[in-house]
């Protein structure tokens, strides 16, 4: 790891390297403490179980230095500075917002509530401590605030532009009262917000302690040091892995949940020597439904930095990544730069397709040296009411999907995108008035490949209340997660009411407002990730293992992998396999597969 340090060590730096390392370690640890505090003191299952929160330190210029590796937003301070210039900020101030438009991408949907504390030492500004968390309910048209049916962000909850919620340690009670009045669950909201504010104060105190111990100048140097370190890491990775040239890719979202129309994210990655630019100009127009994503320019840079820096402990997500990559162009009025007041609640469908498009462009640039695409996590919202008991249940459950195969390994089976846990069957049955009748791997959903895509799952939910309304967000059915380098795409999911019965009906998978009755069985089948490399190169014994373990059917082993099993389905017929694989090898395979192998024109069309 000691080859050619790109950042001059020791000599030109006012603060010695050991001190810089101590401060950098202290900042990392302080950030982890902030998260531990949120984890420990928050109230809602969203934060506690889902871990849907973010903490960071920024330098005095508002540039990200140390943070959670979460690529949902950037540009955390700029929106605040517009209303509250830096020289008006004082020790003990706390700023608050959740408005993606007013913060210009500092946050990307309304349930995420951002708190920022400026930190001072001896009258000098040191930087900022920041924390946000996803709140359980911030108002809007449905409980939980996020609705697949929302057509404007006014339906998604209260919008708070950057405001000062504390002045020199004194809480602005008026703001607080307005804010809590707008939630259906004010106690839970207060509990969560107190936890996030406490984490912000903890971060502020830690930053002050670092400055007291090492000096403000050393802290400044350490901020610059960790940013330079990330910048160097990403520049090196780009130089090593990505040849000069210009490559585009288009990736698809099934629908915007209020219409049947699919939407796409298009990116062109251009590299010329040290200069890398990203152009999203050919992305589709903004949607009527809530898949719009107010994307700060930093977001795709963070994505590339984290992906290319995954092996490098010095590649931490911060402003260094932003400096390593040049201009990011977006087109106003497009899916990734929507006009106010487009709805935003389901923006992660677009966010994950931004990652997909970047991976696709990388694969084109590098001859396949990039992961296959992952499916977007699944949520269903079952709002039931039992008139006999008068009990109202809100079951918001996140379900796992299959992840894209990696260039060196299979994709992960059955994982959520953020670290959200599913509800145990035994918990769901005791709390939500449902009965879960199956939970299993969705066989054949992982994209066939030398490295197989991860598989999704099947969950059968029986409605026990006498009526319920269902909202769904299940993507990657019409446009499954693509395969790379000869690997095939994952298989899509579906939602069926009363499967295997005469009145079976299939529901649109991005939609809301479906009425269900007592006794209905809801089968939710989630999609898999794309495969990587030709499935004919997957060792036959490994394919047999997949069959025995329930990931691949005997038919898919034969048709996709060219592996023939004997009648018992427990041993490989090697002779027949060789013959079949020789036959299948004649089928031309291209770099990308989404439902079928795509031509170069098709991947950008």
């Amino acid at each position: 790891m000691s080859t050619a340090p790109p950042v001059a060590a020791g000599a030109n730096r006012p603060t010695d390297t050991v001190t810089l390392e101590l401060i950098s370690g202290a900042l990392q640890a302080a950030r982890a403490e902030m998260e531990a505090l949120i984890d420990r003191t928050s109230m809602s299952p969203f934060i506690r179980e889902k871990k849907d929160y973010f903490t960071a330190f920024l330098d005095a210029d508002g540039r990200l230095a140390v943070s959670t590796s979460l690529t949902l937003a950037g540009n955390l301070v700029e929106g605040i500075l517009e209303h509250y210039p830096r020289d008006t900020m004082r020790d003990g101030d706390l700023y608050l917002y959740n408005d993606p438009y007013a913060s210009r991408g500092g946050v990307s949907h309304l349930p995420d509530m951002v708190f920022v504390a400026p930190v001072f030492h001896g009258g000098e500004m040191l930087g900022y401590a920041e924390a946000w968390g996803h709140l359980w309910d911030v108002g809007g048209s449905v409980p939980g605030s996020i609705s697949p049916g929302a057509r404007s962000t006014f339906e998604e909850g209260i919008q708070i532009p950057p405001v000062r919620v504390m002045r020199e340690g004194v809480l602005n009670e008026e703001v607080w009262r307005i804010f809590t009045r707008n939630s259906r669950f004010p106690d839970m909201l207060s509990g969560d917000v107190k936890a996030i504010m406490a984490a912000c104060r903890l971060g502020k105190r830690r930053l002050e302690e670092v400055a007291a111990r090492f000096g403000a100048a050393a802290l400044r140097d350490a901020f610059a040091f960790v940013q330079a370190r990330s910048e160097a890491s990403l520049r090196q990775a780009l130089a090593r892995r990505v040849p000069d040239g210009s490559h585009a890719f288009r990736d698809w979202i099934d629908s915007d949940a209020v219409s049947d129309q699919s939407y796409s994210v298009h990116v062109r990655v251009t590299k010329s020597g040290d200069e890398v630019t990203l152009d999203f100009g050919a992305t589709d127009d903004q949607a009527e439904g809530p898949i719009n994503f107010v994307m700060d320019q930093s977001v795709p840079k963070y994505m590339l930095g984290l992906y290319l820096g995954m092996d490098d402990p010095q590649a931490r997500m911060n402003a260094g990544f932003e400096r390593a990559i040049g201009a990011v162009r977006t087109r106003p009025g497009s899916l990734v730069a929507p006009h106010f007041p487009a709805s935003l609640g389901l923006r992660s469908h677009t966010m994950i397709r931004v990652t997909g498009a970047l991976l696709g462009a990388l694969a084109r640039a590098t001859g396949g040296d990039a992961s296959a695409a992952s499916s977007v996590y699944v949520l269903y919202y079952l709002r039931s009411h039992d008139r006999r008991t008068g009990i109202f249940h809100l079951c918001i459950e996140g379900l796992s999907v299959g992840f894209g195969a990696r260039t060196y390994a299979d994709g992960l089976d059955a994982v959520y995108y953020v670290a959200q846990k599913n509800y145990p069957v035994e918990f769901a049955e005791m709390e939500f008035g449902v009965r879960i009748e199956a939970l299993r791997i969705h066989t054949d959903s992982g994209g066939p490949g030398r490295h197989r895509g991860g598989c999704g799952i099947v969950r059968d939910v029986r409605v026990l209340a006498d009526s319920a309304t269902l909202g769904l967000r299940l993507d990657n059915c019409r446009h499954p997660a693509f395969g790379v380098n000869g690997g095939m795409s994952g298989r899509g999911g579906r939602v069926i009411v009363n499967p295997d019965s005469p009145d079976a009906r299939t529901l649109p998978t991005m939609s809301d407002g479906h009425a269900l009755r007592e006794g209905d069985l809801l089968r939710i089948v989630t999609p898999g990730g794309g495969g990587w490399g030709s499935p004919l190169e997957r060792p036959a014994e490994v394919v047999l293992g997949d069959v025995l373990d329930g990931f691949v059917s005997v038919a898919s082993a034969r048709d996709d992998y060219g592996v023939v099993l004997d009648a018992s389905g427990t041993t490989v017929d090697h002779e027949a396999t060789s013959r079949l694989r020789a036959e299948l090898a004649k089928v031309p395979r291209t770099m990308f597969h989404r439902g079928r192998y795509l031509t170069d024109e098709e991947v950008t069309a």
Partner: protein
Amino acid sequence: MSERAIPGVRIGVDVGGTFTDVVCAIPGQGHRVLKVPSTPGDSSRGVMDGVAAVLAQAEVDAARIERFAHGTTVATNAVLERKGARIGLITTEGFRDVLEIGRQMRSQMYNVRLDPETPVFLAPGRMRRTVRERIGSKGEVLVPLDEASVVEAVDGLVADGAQSIAVALLFSFLDGSHEERVRDIVRERHPGLDVSLSCEVDPAFREYERTAVTAFDAYIKPVVDRYLAHLENGLSSAGVEAPLQVMQSRGGLANAAVARRRPIRLFLSGPAAGVIGAQAVGAVAGVEDLISVDIGGTSCDIALVSGSKPLIRPEGTIDGYPVRVPMIDVNAIGSGGGSIAWIDGAGGLRVGPHSAGSDPGPACYGRGGTAATVTDASIVLGYLDPAYFAGGALALDPELAHRAVERTVADPLGMSVHAAAAGIHRVLDAQMAEGIRLVSIRQGFDPRGFALVPLGGAGALHACSLADELGIRRIVVPRRPGVLSAGGLLAAPVEHEMSAAFAERLDRCDLAAVRTVLDGLDRQCEALMAEEGAMAHEDRRVEHAADVCYVGQGYHLEIPLVLDDPDPLQRLYRDFLAAHDRVYGHATEAPARFVNLRSVHRAGGAGEVELAETGDSAAPRGSRTIWLPGREEPVEAVVVRRGALAAGERLVGPAIVEQADTTILVRPGWVGAVSDNALLVLERTAEEQS
């Protein structure tokens, strides 16, 4: 033991990765301590070697041993090395993949290099079968057990090579009859096959966690069973009549026969003994709140003792996988004496997580290691005497240490060798201190209110510096920090614990129902105690506890349940609110409910550790030049052997205390006092910022 003319000998044996430590308490002769090399593959050989050696040395007959307590890594290693049994897992129809899917969780967000976080290796899909049956959420039978489907599943798994069967059916914690019937069928058709039932291993809700822990139980049971049987035979052949007792993860001992039936409780057998040792040392020193820090070659184990009780967590982990059995909350971080210092691509000094281990070990071992480790830095700084490392058992080469630090750290960074070595220490100490702070804050404690108890070979060398970083003002150094785990085995009580799911609301619950369940658990604990022989009668204590949560909450806290209180349920609720406030930072008077009831029976365990001075020859005081971080110039430090310290003596830092199993660095600003029972208590006297 009153019937015995001669009081008995007590032996504690702790098996570590490199050494097997034996502590032998002989009435009238104090403690004898011995280290013998561990014997990977069959660690019982090392145990037998150590016992034979210590008995020979003490000229004691094996028949005089009245107590034999053992800390073992055999359960842990079976998992880490994937050497458990081939198991078959039986689940409810429709739920074959619960073990595979788990909680769909990734503990690290967005790391692209991720591996599955569920222990699928225990039973991949081909070794999982389902049976037709279903119990509902109120314990009602929705689908009766279809025995034909059981026969088919069991025979199929056995045909596929299952050596052990795990059964985890939905809601079996409310009604275990289906699982029990599956076991009967297995026994009828395949006598001798081990069966683990989830309603016995972990009768609590959340099917994935219950399934995983039951599968782990089935996976390690044959291995643990074989090992303990083997060791019992060996001890018996050697003339040891005392029953073999094994340390469990909660910090209490169990008879080997019981331990073999409940192997899942042995994952923290070794580390738990160290924490019990630290707790016992604290008790002697009058310290109720302490943090034990066990620093070895590759890792650092951190645990909190609050109010003289080790913190227990309801769910532990093994190799990153969840194991839902209560265990002492020991947190390992990858920093130790063997941690390697390196320069990253941007010119930053890093220490660990890679370790030189024991082979090749630090550069100064002279076994071909060239990387600079923390131990090499300690040599360069003058903290360790190269000629008296491990009591002189291993001669270190200071020149190699010097060269390694110079070549890999000092030269690339353009600093002096001493500054580089001091930098290595500062980075490592900061990392460990952050680890300790994080462990404390997650439990809702401020470390400044705690004393530090260093253990392991390297704990005492870093203790002052860690305390300085954390604002801790008192350090209690045990007489033999390097073998405190073995000592802890002698201090531990026998303990048996049983729990049962109990899904009632506190405010709607009849106390009689609680008593009925607890009576049942008490009877089960008593039956286990009956197998413990004489020790079961010493100072018997019974504690009850309840796992409690708010209605609708998904996580719970263990709260003591005091049945002879005037209003036990009201007190339980109040204590729950207080605990919730401490751990989670808030509490509201919302309705709460039981999750589990628990009974814990303990006996014996005087809390005795080695106190008196033994053996070490008195040596003259010397002095040595040492370099301290943050100071340009070296200082002279007093150097003294631990055995030469007299009771009541004060030792002002900078000073170094040497003993065979560790070296203690007393930094400036700290003063040591030697207690009557040979503990060294260091107190912070001045504000000295390193």
